[in-house]
């Protein structure tokens, strides 16, 4: 009896060996990150950005709604009055100081939803590692897009929004297809109707890589 049991064990070992051997020739799912980058879903919540209007004026009116919506208390806004000779934003006020502590930020996107002027948006950029804590406090000099970057459309199709070096693996490996990414949630549906920029994106057939492939 004991001998028979041990013979079965030998069979089990051989079976296990055959499994490991066959695994040697399987396709490996590894994405070799620094050299190959997976494309995120368009709704990905990454680093923030402060946008402008087409005439170069800042969208932010310093209302501090984002700051009060922020569950992590990561946003500090200090508003100031626009003066006739130096108009920063179309409204009465603008943000004199706008700081986000990215170490506190939980990237929930509530600031984006709270913003009445679509000034603060989350981009798909996520590589912001640094060596000093202080460098994670992003102030206006780094958050505000330069005027030449354009008006800033929906978060996913802003110029330079999705880095062009995100690899071609997107069409095989992205968990959310680009075309249906927004449709996946209720919030996506709302965004679809509110943000015009997505119409262009919806027309892209699924699987077509975004961005240039230089």
């Amino acid at each position, binding site marked *: 009896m004991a001998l028979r049991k*041990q013979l079965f064990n030998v069979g089990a*070992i051989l079976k*296990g*060996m055959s*499994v*490991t*051997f066959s*695994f*040697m*020739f*399987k396709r*490996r*799912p*590894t994405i*070799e990150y620094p050299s190959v980058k997976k494309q995120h879903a368009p709704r990905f919540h990454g680093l923030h950005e402060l946008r402008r209007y087409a005439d170069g004026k800042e969208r932010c009116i310093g209302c501090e709604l984002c700051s009060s919506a922020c569950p992590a208390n990561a946003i500090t806004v200090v508003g100031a009055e626009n003066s006739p000779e130096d108009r920063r934003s179309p409204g009465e006020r603008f943000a004199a100081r706008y700081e986000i502590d990215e170490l506190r930020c939980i990237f929930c996107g509530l600031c984006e939803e709270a913003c009445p002027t679509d000034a603060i948006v989350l981009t798909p950029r996520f590589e912001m590692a640094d060596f000093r804590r202080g460098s994670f406090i992003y102030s206006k000099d780094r958050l505000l897009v330069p005027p030449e970057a354009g008006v800033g459309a929906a978060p996913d199709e802003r110029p330079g929004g999705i880095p062009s070096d995100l690899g071609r693996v997107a069409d095989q490996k992205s968990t959310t297809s680009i075309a249906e990414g927004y449709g996946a949630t209720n919030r996506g549906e709302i965004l679809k109707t509110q943000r015009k920029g997505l119409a262009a994106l919806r027309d892209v057939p699924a699987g077509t890589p975004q961005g240039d492939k230089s």
Partner: protein
Amino acid sequence: MDVVTNILTAPYWPFVLLKSGILAFVVITTFAYAMLFERKVLGWMQLRPGPNRVGPWGMLQPAADAAKLILKEDLTPKSADPLIYRLAPFISLLTAFAAFAIIPFGESKDGLWAVGNVNAGILLLMAITSIGIYGITLGGWASGSKYPLLGSVRSTAQMISYELAMTMSFVGVLILAGTTSLDGIVHAQAHWWFAGPQIVGFLLYAITAVAETNRTPFDLVEAETELVAGFHTEYSGLRFGLFFIAEYVNMLTVSCIATLIFLGGWNAPFHLTAIPGIVWFLLKIGAFMFFYMWLRATLPRFRYDRLMAFGWKVLLPVATLNLILTAVVVAIWG
């Protein structure tokens, strides 16, 4: 070419030293790439690419590892026995290397392919590799810490129970070959590898060799889930590296012995003599090494009592039976 041969076979000590140096260099390089290859194979079997960041296909990974180990701090615990603690890795390493001195890598009528051609080679080889266990035992004991001590106690028990079965496993080969010289054993396999008639011995050897080199599934000496890292828990930096080298060189030694006494050494299979013997020898070693890595990727660790029970209640009786059977067969028909 003749000049090189003459230099490498000259019986004067500077030339022998030179030859030993060349061999040591080759063994170290082989170790480095065996380690890389093992990490690659383990990676492939676990659906990972394995190390591939340093140099093309990770070919410079061994150099990076070596640089890292050299730059790390060499710690000696306060409760350790400093002399033995520092000496132990060298015992492991030197015995591992010494074993290579008597392994013939090819036809050695003129002594070209071995540093030392000993006529009781297999016995000397066994003796040398047995000393290697002192490095592990003393290292664990001298660390002055509980997990290394447990590791070294295990290593001692494991060595005693498995070395017995290991030696028994190839006494059958010695009976068939009628010699204990490694050269002679390979010559006796010119037509028929001993892995054929001594298949039981070969299987026993393959199993006990894994235990002898403390590799998974018999790596209870350094069982990281139970003993942190076993005997080398307290070692760091280069001293840990020496243990590491010793483990891989022992793997190579054991593969060499398996090749020499069971797989026909440098004899070509199917009369494919166009390919030189050294290539066949290296291929066979490589296959055995791969088998090791394959085992490591597949099998979980044995429980300690089962390891001992397996050694004493299965391997040793089977080895004894095999030996008696071989002796009887040779006595009647030999």
